[in-house]
């Protein structure tokens, strides 16, 4: 099977996952290979490389350690390995991952034979693999990195916090998109915004924006209800709401909008610009955009994932370059990264391949 054959088979298997993965056609996948490796055939034949020729060599085996609540990240990781033509070992979460099972079952035999999935992580998987791609907390990644033999490629995707910046939106045109960004995957993904910073183009605009966002969150929730909450998740949201309710009773700089008695969603307007991390599950903060956003981010500045912008312009991206995200994108499209996205600031295919040169 060459790259085009694999892309074709992957695109077919990925068809039911369009909502999770975005457009995943054969052409999309081959364009991704071409963008990263210089040619869509770089894995299949010698391509010109200065005075010589070169070919990309995929790792023989890639170990993917994926997390439970972000099935799209798990599928993206596996797809990258399959596209390269590597053998793939997938360490699933303890509770399993039905999306992965279904995707694997839809692969043609020849590709399915290139995947092994298990909820356990046998030591021999770590020792026999050429590359590890892992998702998890800093602690999980550190532990895995320590167990990975030296000389192997290790790509760790630690937890990130994302945010949106609304620079100018007098008509509240971005609210529906902002609600979608903050609601999809119940905010569990590294691209899920936790805070929207809204520029005060007039006095009180950020608070008004919060109110409109609350309406949009409710609207989105009607068609896309939140998933079930564990007791500790429910308690975390209920406690946060109680704390802000107390503050809002005596402090006009704070307002809380609560969606439903079932903790469906919460929008909190807070004048204090300090980045407040959300307990997730559709709890989003709206704050006036401060002069120095990087400073207001505090320790979170080291963990910025994506920054949604409205409007999304290169000038605005340059203005907020100090946040060092791996992605600036329009508000409303934060959850739809293209296949070419440098996840964690790294090219996803290039980071895995090695090159062999041929000099005639």
């Amino acid at each position, binding site marked *: 099977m060459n790259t085009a054959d694999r892309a074709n088979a992957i695109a077919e298997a990925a068809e039911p996952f369009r909502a999770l993965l975005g457009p995943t056609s054969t052409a999309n996948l081959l364009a991704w290979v071409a963008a990263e490796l210089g040619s869509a055939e770089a894995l299949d034949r010698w391509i010109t490389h200065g005075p010589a020729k070169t070919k990309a060599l995929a790792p023989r085996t890639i170990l993917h350690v994926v997390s439970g609540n972000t099935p799209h990240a798990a599928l993206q990781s596996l797809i990258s390995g399959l596209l390269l033509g590597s053998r793939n070992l997938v360490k699933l979460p303890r509770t399993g991952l039905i999306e992965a099972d279904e995707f694997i079952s839809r692969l043609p035999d020849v590709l399915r034979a290139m995947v092994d999935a298990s909820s356990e992580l046998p030591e021999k998987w770590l020792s026999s693999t050429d590359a590890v791609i892992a998702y998890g907390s800093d602690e999980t990644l550190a532990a895995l990195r320590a167990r990975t033999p030296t000389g192997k490629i290790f790509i760790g995707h630690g937890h990130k*916090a994302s945010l949106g910046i609304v620079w100018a939106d007098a008509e509240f045109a971005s609210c529906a998109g902002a609600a979608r960004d903050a609601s999809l995957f119940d905010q*569990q993904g590294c691209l899920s915004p936790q805070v929207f910073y809204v520029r005060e183009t007039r006095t009180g605009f950020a608070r008004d924006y919060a109110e409109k966002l609350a309406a949009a969150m409710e609207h989105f929730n009607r068609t896309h209800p939140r998933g079930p909450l564990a007791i500790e998740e429910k308690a975390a949201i209920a406690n946060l709401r109680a704390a802000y309710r107390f503050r809002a009773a005596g402090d006009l700089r704070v307002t809380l909008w609560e969606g439903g008695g079932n903790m469906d969603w919460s929008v909190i307007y807070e004048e204090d610009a300090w980045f407040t991390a959300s307990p997730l599950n559709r709890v989003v903060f709206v704050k006036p955009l401060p002069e120095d956003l990087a400073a207001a981010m505090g320790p979170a500045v080291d963990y910025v994932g994506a920054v949604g912008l409205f409007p999304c312009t290169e000038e605005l991206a340059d203005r907020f370059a100090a946040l060092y995200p791996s992605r600036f994108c329009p508000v409303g499209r934060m959850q739809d990264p293209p296949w070419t996205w440098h996840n964690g600031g790294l090219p996803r295919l290039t980071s895995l391949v090695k090159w062999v040169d041929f000099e005639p």
Partner: protein
Amino acid sequence: MNERNREQELEATVRTAIAGERGASWDDMLCELHSWHFRHNPPYRKFCETGGVSETVRDWREIPCVPQDAFKHTDLRSFPAAETVKTFRTSGTTGEGFGRHHFRTLEVYETAVREGRRLSGLPAGPFLVIAPHPDEAPHSSLSHMFGTLAQREDFIASGGKLDLSRLRAAQEPVCVLGTALGFLNLCEQLGEERVGLPAGSTAMETGGYKGSGRDISREQLYGMISDRLGIAPEDIFNEYGMTELSSQFYARGPKGLHHGPPWARAIVCDPVSLEEVGEGETGILLIYDAANVGSVVGIRTQDLAIKRGRAFELLGRDPAALPRGCSRAADEWMNR
């Protein structure tokens, strides 16, 4: 009687009742304290009014519980600020601010600490304290609690340096007091050494491992303490308290349930409806503490617990590793 005299009388009533010098109906006392706080604590009054709770309640369960977090943003004080004799502070993370608990008198607090200790079954001493003395940590309610129980010379961790010789030299049974992290550090410092404390020695540990990146179970910790110091796991107590409270809840042994003194109540509730959960069910912990004379009696904690009769089994803030994706959530910052 003017309000000032009434305030002193309330304090005296609560203090003498805690000390067991006179009887009290704690149910009525909690309701009376709520009325007092409603009248003299404007943020609390606003909070009550927002929730439709008036100055007079007939049942202590009608008293609204103030979220623990409110102590960070509001001065919950039921007396003139100028009369503050002590303010305990929580250990807040950067940028979040500290929770502050103000006191007009420490007499009620200290009486509650001593009587609570006595009722828990923890020995009255002699103590060895592996935590800073109140002089070194004047804003720590924990240090103050240790200072209330133990003498100045019982503190063996001055300037952050642990004096192990005091442990090694113990001739009679002692009660070692410290934080869980303090005990962990002590065990690590001892390494392979085994200090066999005299038979009958006990220990009391408190607090979690916040900010340390450490997390071990109570059972494991008690196993380590038992191994290094020779104290039976069943003679190790856990104390559950917080800056925002004046009273403590104690559990004995690695599996022990937490019990409070008669003047403090802990109920386990559904986090949304705030209805008390059924036996064996999990919920958040609401605490009513009559020793909180100068602040508020009802506190909504951020801890989860399981209802076990009149006691509770503490689970803490994040009892299980949350099934979570790659988004960095609030509690992850907190734990750093």
